[in-house]
């Protein structure tokens, strides 16, 4: 018999989560009660987190190609949502989810890098800069 956990969002919406999915969260694991209120996280975000947990409770093998694809879909949201998800995952201490989300942020930064630089300094040519740098190092 698996227990059922109740997760409450800041706007008072309750999500019921099966034990297998819930125990992906370290916080819930340590908790003495089966009802957790997650502060500052709205229902919309909490719902997505629950969705992630359910998906990952089903299949344990995270190296599975299908899961990978699903995960990639999952994190393709805009910056605002992304940061809210990180907060929730951090509070609930779901390491895997935190890692995936922060990885996404890193990728976004990488993507932003060149564009932002060139937008800020129109005369700046990244390629030329790199080549000169390499020459000065002796390559």
């Amino acid at each position, binding site marked *: 018999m698996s227990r059922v956990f109740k997760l409450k969002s800041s706007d008072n919406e309750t999500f019921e989560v099966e034990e297998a999915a819930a125990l992906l969260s*370290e*916080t819930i694991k*340590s*908790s*003495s*009660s089966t*009802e*957790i*209120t997650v*502060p*500052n996280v709205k229902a919309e975000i909490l719902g997505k987190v629950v969705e992630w947990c359910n998906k990952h409770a089903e299949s344990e093998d995270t190296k599975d190609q299908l899961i990978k694809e699903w995960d990639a879909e999952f994190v393709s949201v805009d*910056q605002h949502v992304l*940061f809210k998800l990180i*907060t929730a995952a*951090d*509070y609930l*201490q779901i390491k895997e989810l935190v890692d995936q989300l922060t990885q996404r*942020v890193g990728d976004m*930064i990488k993507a*932003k*890098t060149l564009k*932002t*630089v060139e937008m800020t300094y129109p005369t700046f040519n990244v390629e030329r800069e790199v080549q000169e*740098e390499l020459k*000065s*190092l002796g390559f």
Partner: protein
Amino acid sequence: MSNQKKRNFQIEAFKHRVVVDPKYADKTWKVLEHAIREIYNHNASGLSFEELYRNAYNMVLHKYGEKLYSGLVKTMTCHLKEISKCIEAAQGGMFLEEMNKLWTDHNKALQMIRDILMYMDRTYIPSTQKTPVHELGLNLWRDNIIHSSKIQTRLLNTLLELVLRERTGDVINRGLMRNIIKMLMDLGPSVYQEDFENPFLEVSAEFYKGESQKFIECCDCGDYLKKAERRLNEELDRVTHYLDARSEVKITNVVEKEMIANHMLRLVHMENSGLVNMLLDDKYEDLGRMYNLFRRVANGLSTIREVMTSHIRETGKQLVTDPERLKDPVEFVQRLLDEKDKYDSIIKLSFNNDKTFQNGLNSSFEYFINLNTRSPEFISLFVDDKLRKGLKGVSEEDVEVILDKVMMLFRYLQEKDVFEKYYKQHLAKRLLSGKTVSDDAERSLIVKLKTECGYQFTSKLEGMFTDMKTSQDTMQGFYASHPELGDGPTLTVQVLTTGSWPTQPSVTCNLPAEMSALCEKFRSYYLGTHTGRRLSWQTNMGTADIKATFGKGQKHELNVSTYQMCVLMLFNNADRLNYKEIEQATEIPALDLKRCLQSMACVKGKNVLRKEPMSKDICEDDTFLVNEKFTSKLYKVKIGTVVAQKESEPEKQETRQRVEEDRKPQIEAAIVRIMKSRRTLDHNNVISEVTKQLQSRFLANPTEIKKRIESLIEREFLERDGTDRKLYRYLA
């Protein structure tokens, strides 16, 4: 130097909705501090996990992790200091109980605290490399309780005292001990070792030093060992019940050193109860215990082994040089076998079939058996006795067992060629008198000797058996071709090939007329079918069955030697004869004649002749008559079987001389073999090679080898090198 262009990319600051109140941190901490105290006071049920978790989370998020952490340290330390006072105040037996109870409480509380502070544990602490909550809790306990000045010594002394009480026979609370020791183990290996284990080992060493001293003064060896064994088992038991498993080897080392290693020699050599006494009395259990205990310490087993080996050598030496024992060869050998059996049992039952002990036993036997030069002869006599009558009615397997034991003694002999000579003599007598109990047993032993020494050793022995068989066939052929002889005396001839049988000097003997005619017929028959051979009658080795009628008509069949037959047949033609007449008529050599007459006239129950005067010895003036009054319960009377006996002194000298003579060609053959393959070799190497080659037969004497070399040089088989006198060269 190149310029590293710093690339600072700014992510938009994440705005947290919670209001940042400067007093917020203080308020939040107060809540948590209260909660921790409540947990310690067993009031946790009133707390809300998620509320506390959220508070801790918020503090860390707002960069107040430091405040939270140091607050935790302060609160726990303060609490533990109070606990310390409670424990210090406990009296006597309650000291450990109180500590145990409070330790259990502390662990429960720590678990709960860790749960609510989990966020800090997983994020703030790793990044600042501070001690995680659980470990922190243990360290604070260690520093404030275990290492508190009022507790540290008292704890150790309490524990050690309980161990001492248990060692002196009291029953202690093992469960409590286990919990306390486990506490020390949980606090870290160095805590367990320094605050308990090391002092424990020191105190134990002192204890066992004293105890062993006390015991060794008043106990005998067997009892002491029992006590030592018991103490070892106790310590093992102690470790199993309430110490760290890794202490086992350390504490057993202490006991082994104090109780066994330090007193090893005194125990082994203890008067009236030491190792030698145990060996003599076959104390299997005590010996086994000694073995098991001594094997734990360095040189333990070698000490036992050395004492055992020298004891066996001593007793063996006494055995073989005791003149009383040497009177009966069969008893002598049986005694050796009994000794061997005794020690085989000891090694099997008490010494775990240890190979090194077996080797020690073997080398001891080899040493003392060869101290007596008559050992080969005696062993052959023992075998002879067994094959004549000793093995009668014994099952096949048991026969094999006895023969194997004999072979084992044989292996110890250095002078195997001497054994061979005697064995041949004794075998010849057995075969010719038909006195062997079992042909299979004889053959079995030959096979064993062949396996041990090679074909060369036994080829002649086998030749003897072949001769016996061939002779049977020859006799059948003889009687088949001379049917007219069926009514006369029955002749049975064994034709012996000279090389295979022990050499006998040729003897004179006048056979009675009836016999000599028959023998001539046989001789012509045999030489008819085997041209080019020479036959000579060995009258000193034959037997005869003759029917005799005495004074009152009593008839008996007498089984006698050929010599005795010749003497008795004379009385068919004369009533009384004196010694000289008998000697002339039979031409039997004096010594043999005297022996023969003595066996017929002076032995009770076999006195078919009467002698005048009735003295015990045969003199040249004696007269002999048939003893008309001879009686015997049996119809068939055996007189004078040719039995193998222990040699007299002159006979022994003779045999020894013959052995030495036989060795000379063997040595020469070995020298020639070696030189042929090496071409040139120096003196010392020749000696060692020759000795090695001949080792399986006898121990070659270097002086003798030198003489043989000289002889070979004379006969131009070898030469000395011109410049180096120590070098020899082979001459093809």
